[in-house]
């Protein structure tokens, strides 16, 4: 069969828009940038909006077989969320880079976002790996570009070295998966039934140590992206080092990509975890929640605190992941029993509220070494509530949402995640384990409240002091818009959860517990052996 290149490209149009746009933005840097000129930002944002518009039209012809690409509703969801939150990131980052580096910065951002979409689209290990690298490589540079100071460089170094280290681990896992299956194709298509998923379906092979090894190495490697235990160590240092808006980005972009990849990988196993894998994920989820929260409890630096809290949130999402898709457990077909959908819901809300919190930190300025810097420690925030009621309110809303309090979207996130966990595998002995995990999770949420509350308390309960950052604020209008949108969105998700719930449910509607149905995964021109 002849690969229909045009159809394949058609499927990839949003990603293509992003990458081509990114290249164009990069090329503009050859023009000499003036201080006030932010054409690169505008161009990049326009690119993003075009991609968004295209995705929204949903023109991908799913009936035509294309290439080793997914075109299911998860792709649509991933693109929409990526692009929407990407837009917010653009708003937050507008004044981050130096004028002469704007093109590089924003084009890298576009590449990174394109990478996330590609992760879902990929139906091939090679493509998946490339997509993941496309997500992470730009982020290494973004951290370095975001600030000039020592910490940013240290963060860049740590993130890059450890990221490469983790990527090698993940890739090693991929190689075993390929080796056992003999193909890099993830899911079978009508034209090429051989796929890793098909291999994993066979009970004899699924138990093979090398398959397990491959899966495990892949998962652990991806855990770096999620900032999940045991690969969470870098998180605080990197988050602290990056400029606040970029930190906001780091909380979302790699995590989303990582979770999408894990969803794709685990779907191959059919969600009927072997005991070992179940308990591994169980322990990972529990440990991630606990480690993140307890470490965050020890922090005085808000960015580090939020970094560890990001670990903890990965833990909650792992709980949802463990719950699996709706039909994973017998009898668990309730609407809030869908773990994957809960995960997708949660991560979107998390991306927004996390970004909002960092945007608020960016909004409060303090004199740094040489140039002014965003607020970073609790002391910096003292008295903010009084000086800047609206920004503090937005920060408080985002933080309360992270805490999971009503009336914020975070509440529904927790609701969805925990109810999914409670209702999965109802009649199996694992149900009790899930209940224990949920109880552990809510207790962790209580621990989390203790440190989130410190942020709120610093804003509202403490008087402004000499060291507070609240005397200055950012003059960036885009940042303020971002903050406003984040706060409003977080509230909106509470008032009308269906704005996010319906898409997230639709995203997994086609996901069946067995293997992805051929209708949704279209492959042609698979290289025959």
């Amino acid at each position, binding site marked *: 069969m002849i690969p229909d290149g045009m159809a394949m490209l058609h499927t990839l149009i949003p990603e293509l828009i992003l990458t081509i746009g990114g290249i164009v933005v990069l090329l503009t840097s050859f023009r000499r940038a003036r201080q006030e000129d932010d054409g690169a930002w505008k161009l990049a944002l326009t690119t993003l909006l075009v991609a968004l518009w295209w995705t929204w039209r949903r023109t991908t012809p799913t009936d035509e077989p294309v290439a080793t690409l997914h075109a299911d509703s998860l792709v649509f969801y991933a693109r929409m969320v990526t692009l929407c939150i990407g837009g917010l990131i653009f708003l937050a980052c507008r004044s981050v880079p130096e004028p002469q580096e704007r093109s590089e910065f924003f084009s890298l951002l576009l590449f990174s976002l394109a990478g996330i979409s590609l992760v879902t689209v990929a139906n091939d290990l090679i493509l998946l790996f490339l997509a993941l690298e496309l997500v992470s490589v730009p982020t290494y540079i973004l951290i370095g570009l975001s600030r000039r100071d020592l910490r940013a460089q240290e963060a860049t170094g740590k993130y890059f070295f450890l990221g490469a280290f983790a990527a090698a681990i993940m890739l090693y896992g991929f190689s075993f998966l390929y080796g056992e299956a003999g193909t890099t194709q993830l899911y079978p298509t009508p034209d090429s039934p051989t796929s890793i998923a098909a291999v994993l379906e066979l009970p004899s092979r699924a138990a093979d140590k090398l398959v397990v090894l491959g899966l495990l190495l892949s998962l652990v490697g991806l855990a770096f992206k999620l900032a999940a235990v045991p690969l969470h160590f870098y998180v605080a240092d990197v988050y602290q080092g990056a400029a606040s808006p970029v930190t906001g980005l780091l909380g979302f972009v790699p995590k989303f990509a990582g979770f999408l990849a894990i969803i794709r990988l685990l779907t191959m196993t059919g969600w009927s975890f072997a005991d070992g894998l179940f308990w591994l994920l169980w322990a990972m989820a529990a440990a991630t929640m606990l480690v993140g929260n307890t470490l965050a409890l020890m922090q005085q630096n808000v960015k580090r605190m939020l970094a560890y809290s990001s670990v903890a949130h990965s833990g909650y999402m792992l709980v949802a992941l463990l719950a699996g898709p709706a039909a994973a457990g017998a*009898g668990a*077909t*309730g*609407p*809030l*029993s869908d773990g994957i959908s809960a995960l997708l819901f949660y991560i979107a809300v998390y991306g927004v509220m996390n970004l909002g919190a960092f945007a608020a930190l960016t909004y409060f300025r303090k004199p740094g070494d040489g140039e002014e810097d965003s607020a970073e420690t609790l002391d910096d925030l003292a008295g903010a509530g*009084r000086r800047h*009621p609206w920004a503090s*309110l937005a920060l408080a809303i985002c933080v*309360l949402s992270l805490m999971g*309090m*009503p*009336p914020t979207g975070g*509440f*529904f996130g*927790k*609701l969805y995640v*925990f*109810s999914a966990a*409670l*209702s999965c595998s*109802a009649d199996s002995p694992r149900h009790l384990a899930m*209940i224990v995990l*949920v*109880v552990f999770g*809510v*207790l962790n*949420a*209580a621990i989390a*409240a*203790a440190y989130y*509350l410190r942020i*709120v*308390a610093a804003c*509202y*309960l*403490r008087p402004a002091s000499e060291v507070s950052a609240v005397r200055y604020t950012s003059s960036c209008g885009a940042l303020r818009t971002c903050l406003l949108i984040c706060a409003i969105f977080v509230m909106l998700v509470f008032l*009308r*959860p*269906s704005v996010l*719930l*319906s898409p997230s*449910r639709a995203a997994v509607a086609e996901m069946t517990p067995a293997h992805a149905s051929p209708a949704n995964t279209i492959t042609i021109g698979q290289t025959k052996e």
Partner: protein
Amino acid sequence: MLYLADTWLGDHILSIVIFLPIIAAAMLFSRTAWQPESIRRFALGISLLTLLFAVLALLIYVSDRPGIAPAEWRLVERSDWLVGEDDQVPLRIQYYVGVDGIGLPLLLLTALLTPLAIWGSFSGIQDRHREYYALMLLLHGAMLGVFCARDLLLFYVFFEFTLIPLYFLIGIWGGSQRQKAADMFFIYTLSGSMLTFAGVLFLGWKASLLPIGPDGLRVFTFELDRLYQLAADGHLSLNTQWWLFIAFFAGFAIKVPLFPLHTWLPLAHTEAPTAGSVILAAVLLKLGTYGFLRLSLPMLPEASIALAPIIGVLAVAGIIYGALAAWVQRDIKKLVAYSSVSHLGFCLLGMFSLHLAGLTGSVLYMVNHGLSTGALFLVVGMIYERYHTREMDHLGGLARQMPIMAFFLILFALSSIGLPGLNGFVSEFLVLLGTFNSEKFVLPGFKGPLGIAFAVPAASGILLGAIYMLYMVGRVLFGPVKEPGHGFDSSTGLTRDLTPREIGVLTPLAIGCILLGVYPKPAIEIMEPALDRAVLARMVPQESASLARYDLSDKHKQAVELDGAYPVDSHADASNLDAISQSDRQHRMPVHLQPEIRNPSTTRREVLR
């Protein structure tokens, strides 16, 4: 009022009551240019308007359409909040409000106390007016919401949300240790209620497994009536109920607070601003008791009965412990705070007696404690505003300086220690009566879990309550005049004795205390059917006789009501028992002899519809 019930207003009255303060709070927060004076007036006006609507709701409630059983939810309003389309199990989280005889009294209590608390803070709050009054209104709306919610998730949302405004109220306008107190309050209560959250989710999921209706439709919903049916239909094993009970217990017992989970309360009370203490004591603690009554008892009947002795022991321990600890306090506010621990023990004791009198007493106790303890906190706040101290060592003989204040303080103290004729007595007596008689008379074929062994030590609360309250009254009001060195502070326009505004704040509470003490019957008549049918009927393993009672013909009912007089001659022949009143016989009559019992299955369906 019947006319109103059919209008738009009648359909949405509860929503208006709940959201009027919330929307007003948002408006207030954005009015940065307003002067304190107009902010105060606005806040007070809104809260009074809310009270007006709440009273209107009461009027519509009592005159609701004929033909509705007295225990039904009324003023119901529902709309979908989160609806998911699903092939098999539609998701339905609703905005579903309504009141019955349990929620309504507490709704009115909240609606009454918040304006008074707001009015009472006019002189105490001198800083950040806008935020303060906005938060008060926000809290107001949330508390009202809790008592109206008919959807468990909605309940939980309001329940949890109340933490946020109060956290700020304590943390910003509190005393010297305000941040510690606010943190402790927030985290302590949140830790408990997070477990409750898990329980809520579990129940919702359980409900989604249950086909309802003839077509076997399954709905994922947190609607209370559905959840009640879980246990009624035997879908919750005793073991499951146990765990769920513990999950609910974690949230509610901390909120109540039940001994030994009470230690956040004295600190929060001491540090909170006056209005915060008032609201905390008067309403927020009731969220816990209301939660027990509304959720734990009817949803988890078997576990509730099984665990009632433990709760009873804790409640009794709290009564005695709280009273003794109150006695040794030097800070008036702390004393009143510990008295709350003691009082709320009574409240739970009565509730878990599962005797109609105990339950009635318990709900009355919630209202009465709100009135009298709220008022006590207000009075203490008034003293504090004048002398900037609450230490009893620094105060004395104030009856001479502030006779009007003394009058109110004594009145509310007496109400708090259960002096007959004031409200505290009615509820205390009913609670003790219910506990005492818990083992008998509850319903035929059903014995309450508590009994004399609980009532006797609890009754010592009568004595202990008097000890610490009179100790406080004696120290503060009596003896030679003693004021702190700086005398009284008139900088905020206060006079030595209470100002007319302050008298205006306390007078409605005083009237309430006396009215509910002398003639609580209207309140009891509102509560009783709801308690009987919404709580007791669900506790009983078999069909309850009390369900049938509402089918008594009017004539018969009248006869029952009129038989108060006992035409008995003490010298008549002693063996002749005929003269013993009809109601007594009625009382002892076995179920199957009572007239006109409905077919049990239809009754059940109607109740749980």
